[in-house]
């Protein structure tokens, strides 16, 4: 650690006089306890790979200064303002530009003989750090300053990739004109705050003229807690009949048209790296879907059994696309969420969903089984098992309370 400033101001002659007046060994000790300059050793707290989040620990090196440090701590003096950490340049970017030097916000913890500074927000990537301790001790003032490049938390510089869900293409069944949601799933955590600058919806119906669809999205960022899944709403105010935006602006999607959703490659991960490529989804739009999903109409193809075990998986086909993200938690088989699992001998059990959201596969041994479906499960247009997305309350049939209870389907797999 390079020390760039090291000063100690006191009144040396006063120390000498007092030492003589006090006399003997006690006086000598008193002199060292009061006038010997304190020295600190500074180190950054580093991970095994040599990186730091900016946490710096200054440990008092000489016994005489420790005496006063202990006194200071005992008397509960705040040393917060005595330890300053400065960062030069943009500590976020990879290239350190050293444009300016500013004092970082942080917290100081006073140990027995040490001060530890932890920045409010961890530093990332490289920055030139300047750490200084300013001490107002009984017989003087000292300043000790270090300057050293700091390797911030190791940045993952690999590009990320993304996928739209449900995964569909132009050969698949069209998306309902009143569809509400798509999902973007990322291979790495992404930056929040400006993602909608990178997402667009285009109408490709006229092959000679690609038309951007303005105001297509409800631009509220709905991220999963890990920042790896974004829910993209087509504007519900336009997709839903009877609310003012729909009446004023019209629906986002038009039946019979062809569209392209694009996430451009400039969206960044939390390490500031872009995407490998633009992420696109092209689809056709069909009639609006205003009916509730009905599990009674689902088709179940039972697994084929060899002995007592499932040799070939079975399928549940919904007959429409359900909300891709809700399926794993809203449908259970034998009380288990849809998840592929294995027995101890490697035999596959469990289940999984297909990426277009229209069916699931499952493995089941011979015997009695049941599927349970949450009443909150929605299709692409927001209709759930209990009620359609659009409820005309002027109809008497819609005035009665909605019954919300899970739907249970039982089936038998025979050997």
């Amino acid at each position: 650690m390079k020390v760039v400033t090291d000063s100690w101001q006191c009144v040396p002659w006063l120390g000498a006089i007092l030492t003589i007046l006090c006399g003997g060994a006690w006086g000598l000790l008193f002199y060292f306890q009061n006038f010997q300059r304190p020295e600190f050793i500074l180190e950054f707290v580093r991970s095994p790979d040599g990186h730091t989040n900016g946490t710096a620990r200054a440990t008092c090196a000489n016994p005489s200064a420790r005496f006063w440090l202990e006194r200071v701590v005992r008397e509960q003096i705040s040393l917060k303002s005595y330890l300053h950490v400065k960062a030069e340049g943009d500590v976020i970017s990879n290239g350190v530009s050293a444009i300016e030097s500013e004092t970082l916000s942080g917290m100081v913890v006073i140990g027995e003989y040490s001060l530890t500074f932890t920045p409010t927000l961890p530093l990332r990537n490289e920055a030139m750090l300047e750490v200084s301790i300013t001490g107002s001790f009984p017989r003087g003032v000292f300043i000790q300053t270090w300057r050293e490049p700091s390797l911030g938390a190791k940045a993952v510089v690999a590009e990320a990739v993304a996928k739209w869900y449900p995964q569909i293409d132009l050969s698949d069944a069209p998306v309902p004109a009143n569809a509400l949601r798509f999902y973007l799933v990322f291979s790495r955590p992404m930056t929040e705050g400006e993602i909608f600058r990178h997402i667009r919806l285009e109408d490709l119906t006229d092959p000679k003229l690609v038309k951007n669809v303005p105001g297509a999205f409800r631009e509220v960022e709905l991220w999963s807690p890990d920042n790896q899944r974004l829910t993209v709403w087509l504007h519900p105010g336009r997709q839903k009949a009877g609310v003012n935006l729909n009446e004023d602006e019209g629906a986002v999607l038009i039946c019979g048209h062809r569209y392209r959703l694009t996430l451009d490659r400039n969206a960044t991960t939390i390490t500031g790296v872009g995407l490998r490529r633009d992420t696109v989804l092209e689809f056709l739009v069909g009639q609006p879907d205003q009916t509730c999903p009905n599990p009674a109409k689902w088709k179940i193809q039972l697994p084929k059994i060899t002995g007592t075990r499932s040799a070939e998986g079975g399928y549940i086909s919904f007959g429409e696309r359900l909300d891709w993200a809700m399926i794993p938690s809203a449908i259970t088989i034998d009380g288990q969420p849809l998840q592929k699992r294995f027995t101890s001998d490697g035999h596959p059990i469990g289940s999984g969903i297909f990426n277009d959201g229209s069916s699931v596969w499952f493995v089941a041994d011979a015997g009695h089984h049941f599927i349970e479906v949450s009443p909150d499960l929605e299709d692409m247009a927001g209709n759930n098992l209990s009620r359609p997305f659009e409820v005309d309350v002027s109809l008497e049939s819609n005035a009665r309370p909605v019954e919300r209870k899970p739907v249970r389907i039982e089936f038998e797999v025979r050997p």
Partner: protein
Amino acid sequence: MKATSFLLIGVGVIGLIASAFVVHSHASPVAASPSLLKNPQTGGLRLAAAGAISFGPEGLLIIAEQRMGSVVAVQTGDVGPVQKLKQRVDKVPELIAKSLGATAENILINDLAVNPMSGLIYLSVSRKPDNAASVVTINADGQVTTLTFDALPWARVTLPGVTSAKSTNITDVACTADRILAAGSCNEEFASKIFSLPLPLEHGATASVYSAETYHVAHGKWETRAPISSFIPHEENGKSFVVGAFACTPVAKFPLDDLKSGAQVKGVSMVELGSGNRPLDLFEYEKGGKRWLVTHTQRFHKPLFGPSEFWGARMDMAYLNSDKVNEKATRRDTKKPSGPEGIEIVDALFGAVQVAKLDNANAVVLRDHEGALAIETVELP
């Protein structure tokens, strides 16, 4: 004898000199108030996100960790006296960036609140690209300080239903005398929920959260589960309500008394502000013997209602007691700055990206000034 006296005097002098350097500026830890926090934590608070913020009693700061679906309450110890911002503070993002190891363009200011007990301005911020979150304060002199949580008691509650993928995006938080309220929308099903968390807030107490799926009636015919963008708690004739503004911009009222966990609460639309707007903030104030509800809104369609897409309007809160609801709800005259009577545009709020009430005479606004965001106090009409 003489030598001993001299020695004692010498030591006394040393003691006096030493004591002159002792600066008793240590910030005392804030004692947790049992009426606000139960099983409080002290120190070690790292915010996973910082979205909507609001204040409760005794300087209790409520922070929505919006992506995480959790609410954090911090007892700041900031209990006054009131000192109002003396003058406009320019280049606020730059000032914040300096203390957080970032550049101004990498700072996002997510919400603004003013502690009514002290006038201290609080901003929830996040840093790009790593989404690191923090809260900063701006005092009466315009000094920007990062809030350090090391000596402050706090409690965190995660709303029910949150998993590694599924979350409730909290759009607004507020505090009444006996509970914290949060509104949010799920990142999966289309649902608007109100969460009620009783005070004292118990750290980790997910079981004590009540939620109510909300509906309101648009145009008297269609029922919608549109998410509440912003809300305030509202008392009326001894009953508790939430007054919320929706993305489709009606102001609706929901009863909260006898709230049961999992209940469905149906609200009624009271006032329509016009389509193409995104409500950002609501607050109420009292002036001239009237109570006013201020809506701060971003317009995303043309034509604009003034010099900026960010605009505000106030409405006489008597409209909340009107029997004209839903399809008969009062509609703001979007072709005029005011009208019908008791509803008007607040000129002082044009251009404000963030707004918070300071008192019954003033609001604090964050808005562009010569190319950079500045914070200032404006007078309420």
